[in-house]
Each structure stands twice: as C-alpha cells, then as structure tokens.
C-alpha cells in the first residue's frame, strides 16, 4: 500500500523581516481553536465548588459595589434620559463588555507562556493560542448577558430593536482584546514584566472607560470626546448602553474607536507573526 501525498510541500527556511499572516493555515487549523477554547472553559470551572455560578457572581458583586459607591454615595448620574434608579442596570450594561474584555486580555496576555509546552513540541499556527484565549470568555459573557436581561425585566427597562447591534459590539470588544492581547502575549514571551503590568493596566484602563460613570461627563465640545474615543472600549460601552438602555446613540467617538481597533489589530497581527519564529527558542 502506498501513501498518497495529500499535504502540500512545506519549506523550512529562516524567515526574514515581516512575514505574511498566512490566514489559510489558520483556517486549516480552525478546529484547534475550538478545542483549546473548550479546554480553557472546561478546566476553569472544574474543582470550583460554585462552578459556573462565578460567571454570575463576579459581575453582580461588582455591580453592587458600583451602585453603592458611585450611584448612591457619590451620586454619579447615569446617561442623560436614564432614571437614577436604573443605575444598577446602567453599570451592569457596561460591566458586561468590560469584563469580557478584561478576561480576554488577562488570558491572552499570558496565553503563550502558559502554553509553552505546546510551543516547544508541536507545530500549529501560533495565532491560535491568543485567539482561543480570547474566545474562552464568551461563555461567561452569555451567562452574564442572561443576568442582564433578568435585571432589565426587574427594573422595567424596555427591550428595543437596537439589541440586534449587540453581536457587532461584542465583536468589537473581542477585537480590542485580541489586538492588545496579540501585542502583550508576544511581548510577554520575551519580557515577563508584561504579566506584572497587565493587572495595573486593566485597572487604569477601566477608569479611563465609562464603566462606573456616564460618558456625558466628557464635554461634547472641543477635542476631549475624540481623544477619549482613542480608547476603543469607550465606543464599545457607549454602544452597549445605547443598544440596551436607549441612551445617546454612537457618534464619531465610535468611528474613532473602530479605526483604532483596526489599526491595533493589524499591527498586532504583524508584530505577533514577526516575533513568532523566536517563540519556541525563547519561551
């Protein structure tokens, strides 16, 4: 019996400079993204007594803290047109994409180092690792989305057709996390400082995003809104609150956020590919 040669010829040679993204190779390995994502989700809740309940408890507890401190004690108003009593839903609507982003970034930034044993033993497109780390947060996201819908019902927040925009907004949040995650994961292979820096970065980033407060605090006139929009999460959160609560619709701030994500993502992809050849030797 002979073995027919189905696989194309692979060439081994030192690569120089910028490497093409080779998305076809990535597509051929798409099932591995699924399996690694599935592994991350499965392992996370094994041996945790409360299991998947954590996906509900975490955002709910933060929402309670935000409502007490920012809503009651500091008396921060929600977006224009939203009653103060809705503050819990108002903060939860932002916590949802924020936590998705935060978890995705946390996981993806350490993903290469955490999978060092794979990097040094088998070949597969390395991009799969941060991809699946980002995707693993989606299950938690959908669970807390259900919680949000329950909250909306409880507070009598009307559901609108704007909800249909949610998938695109989720995609934008994931792309933001992936873009930053690509940069940080590749950097972390060489400089382990990155993983020390990430918690601090995320904390600062959260205060730079309208999670606990309203985007209305930023003056519409002048350059501040536009500068604010350079943080892509502001666009995502603005979009979420618009789609869920009917606050002010996305404006040019959103456009800036989208452009920013695209730039970060493309540079991140190329930076990652450029560093990729050294991963197995350095990790």
């Amino acid at each position, binding site marked *: *019996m*002979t*073995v027919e*040669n*189905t*696989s194309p*010829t*692979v*060439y*081994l*040679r*030192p*690569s120089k400079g910028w490497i093409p993204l080779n998305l076809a190779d990535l597509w051929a*390995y798409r*099932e*591995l993204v*699924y*399996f*690694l994502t*599935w*592994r991350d989700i*499965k*392992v996370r809740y*094994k*041996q945790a007594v409360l299991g998947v309940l954590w996906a509900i408890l975490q955002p709910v507890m933060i929402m309670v803290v935000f409502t007490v401190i920012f809503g009651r004690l500091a008396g921060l108003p929600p977006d224009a047109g939203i009653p103060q009593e809705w503050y819990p839903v108002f903060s939860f609507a932002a916590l949802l994409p924020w936590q998705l982003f935060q978890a995705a970034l946390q996981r993806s930034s350490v993903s290469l180092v955490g999978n060092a*044993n*794979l*990097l*040094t*033993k*088998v*070949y*597969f497109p390395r991009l799969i690792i941060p991809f699946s780390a980002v995707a693993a947060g989606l299950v938690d996201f959908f669970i807390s989305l259900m919680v949000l819908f329950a909250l909306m019902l409880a507070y009598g927040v009307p559901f609108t057709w704007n909800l249909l925009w949610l998938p695109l907004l989720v995609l934008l949040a994931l792309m933001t996390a992936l873009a930053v995650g690509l940069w940080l994961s590749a950097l972390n292979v*060489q*400089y*382990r*400082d990155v993983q020390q820096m990430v918690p601090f970065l995320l904390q600062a980033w959260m205060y730079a995003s309208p999670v606990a407060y309203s985007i209305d605090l930023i003056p519409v006139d002048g350059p501040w809104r536009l500068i604010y929009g350079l943080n892509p999460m502001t666009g995502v959160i603005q979009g979420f609150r618009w789609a869920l609560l009917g606050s002010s619709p996305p404006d040019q701030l959103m456009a800036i956020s989208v452009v920013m994500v695209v730039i970060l993502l493309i540079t991140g992809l190329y930076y990652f590919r450029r560093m990729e*050849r050294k991963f*197995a*030797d*350095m990790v």
Partner: protein
Amino acid sequence: MSDLAIRVEHLSKQYRIGAQAARYDTLRDVIIGTAERVANRLKPGAKGSNSANTIWALRDISFDVRRGQVLGIVGRNGAGKSTLLKVLARVTEPTEGLGEIHGRVGSLLEVGTGFHPELTGRENIFLNGAILGMKRSEIARKFDEIVEFSEVGAFIDTPVKRYSSGMYLRLAFSVAAHLEPEILVVDEVLAVGDAEFQRKCMGKMGDVAQEGRTVLFVSHNMSAILRLTQETLVIDKGRLVMRGPTPQAVDYYLSHGYATEGERTWDAEEVPADAYPFKPLALRVRDSRGKVSDTIRSTEPATLELEYRLEESITGLRVGLYLMSTRGEYVFTSFDTDAPEAFERYSVRPAGRYISRCTLPADLLNEGRFVIGVNASSYRIKRYFQDEQAITFTVDGAGAPGTVWPEPRLGAVRPRLDWQIEVIKE
C-alpha cells in the same frame, strides 16, 4: 513529482547561550544589557563578542529521505538530534539553510503534549488529537481503536491526573500512534512503559513503516535501531558525521567520537537540566593493575567506576551500569545498591562527591568491543540520568578458554567453565 519525503540542505541552527543569557527575561535585563553594550562599544579595542555567546546546535546538515524509508538517527546526548527533529517538525526555524518536507509530519517528540491533568481520558484524546493535527471527525472515527490500543478503557472517563504514569503514557502514545501522518518522527518514546507495551509500540512502528510511510527514528537503543531501520545518520556536535547502512553506522557510532582512553567525562551541555541534583563526572575502566585503560584482558579482573556529585541528598538512589555488545544486545545490568545491606546503608545519599565502583570478574567477557551505559535513578520515583552509550572498551581475549583455536567464539561472554570429560567404558 519526486519520491523524496524530506530534503534538507546546509541546515544550521544557532542558539544563544552564556553570560549574556539566552534571553532577556525582564525589561531590567534589557536596560542593563543595552547599557553594557554601549559601555563596551565606548571602550577602546572592545570587539563585539557575538560568537562567544552562541552555540551551533546544528551545523551544515544535508541529507534526504526517500518516501517510505525508515531512517535511524543516533548521536550522543546534546549532539543535536532533538534540535534536528524540532526543525523538521517546524517547531523552530533553522538559522541557515533550507528544507523541504513532502507530506504531513507527525511528531512523537514527546508523547502527551497538551494533555491536561484535569480532563478525562476521553477529553484528552480529542484535545491531544487536535493539537497533533487531526480533524475531529478523524479522531471520532479512530476513537475506539485508540482506547483499545491504550488498554485504559475502564478509566476513559476519569481525569488523567488519577492515572498511573504507565496508563497516562499508554493513552498518550496511543493517540499519537493513530495519527497516520505521511512522515512519522519518533524520539525516545520507547524508553518508557513496560516491556509488553514497548513491544506493542515497536509493532505499531513496524506497521507504519510497512504501510509505506516515512519514519525518522531517534533512539539510544541500538538494538531497536538495528531492528527497525536500514539506514542511519550519525550526528555529533551538530554535524552529520556519517550516513550509511545501519549496521555500519551503529558500529561507527559506538566506536568513534567516544573517549577511547578508558575514561568518559560529561560536559555541562551533555547533562540534561532535569538530572539535577545528580551530576555525572566520570566513568572509568581500570585494568587489573588499576590503570585507566581502553583495553582489558578477558582473563583478568577489571574495575568499572562512576564518579558523580549529588548537589542535594537523594532518597533511594541507585547508580548502575548496563553492559552491551556493539550490536546492542544487553549483557547485564547491575546497580550499586543491588545488595540489600548496601541498599539499607545508602537509603538516603547525602549531598557530596561519590564513586560507585564494581569489579568485573576474570573470565567473564568474550573478546570484542563492549559498551557501558549509565543509569542513576530512584526506583519508581525518578530517573535522574541515563546515558546508554557512555563509553566503549575492548576486551582482549588472549589466554581465554579456547584461544588455542584461532577462531572467533560466538556469544558475549566467555566463562571458564568447569568441564568434566567422562569416559564411559562399554
């Protein structure tokens, strides 16, 4: 369409090592490193010392493998075999040269890659299969076969962290063995597992070869290399030093490039990091007068000694030797704590420098060349260090029984047996 499976030309791989460290782990190191480089540049007459900090793990390797060929690769620890396989498996890039691989490569560089202890056997089969490049449908189709081959059927829904190391390994090998790649790369997997399972693995590899697949087989087990391959590459210090029919290549490997003075020492890079706290220093063959020598006489006793250092105390350590013929057949295995009193006395060996010494009695070995392998392990706990071909030496048969007839005697041993000839009167 060529019938080559692999072709590599002038392949080289360089690693950075040494004082400057293989990598900058932290930003602080980068800052300090950059500052030092700037300072060095300012110093008059200072030269860039690039070569001092790099090592060529592979140097100018060229060879090709025909489709369906089973090729052996042998070389000492640290010779570059594993680096070569990593380059061929696309885990790491060559620094220079180029290669062409025709067909899917399945590597058994280390079985169980990607196994997660919290997941069950079933889950790990799918995960590991996907990591090795199998499609989900393909894994599902072979699932029963994989489970059956691994013999862990009853525990397939138990997390693998509860498996014994033998079960874990059988399952891992089983997944890898069902990968059906066009080119299979095997590195040292046969060093583990019980004898029965090893036999199955060898059978599976034989089948793979029979089916016309290409196999690259790296091992320190010369009898396995001799049995499974027709042609073998010998690699030493990153260079391809010989390619030839396996018997010649094995013979060359065992008799060249080794300490021929009756003493073998180990360089730092020849000792794997996981050998710690065991550090082999020297292996010596001494003749009956106590002189370190490459040649001993069959009719006189000789001494074998292994000198080593323990950086920390080890419990249950046994240090021992394998004696092999150059054809890879084992003659004996012996450990320094085989005697119960010795085992008791040295149940815990504190840190320090040791020599484990044994005497080969007179009239034991036949004339010819022999190989000594070294093993330092704690039974069922850890194998600290193993070097299957640490040294070779010659036995001079002069005066041995039967040398009145100048013919080679079959067999590895040549004992002076007590023959009685009885004449029966009729």
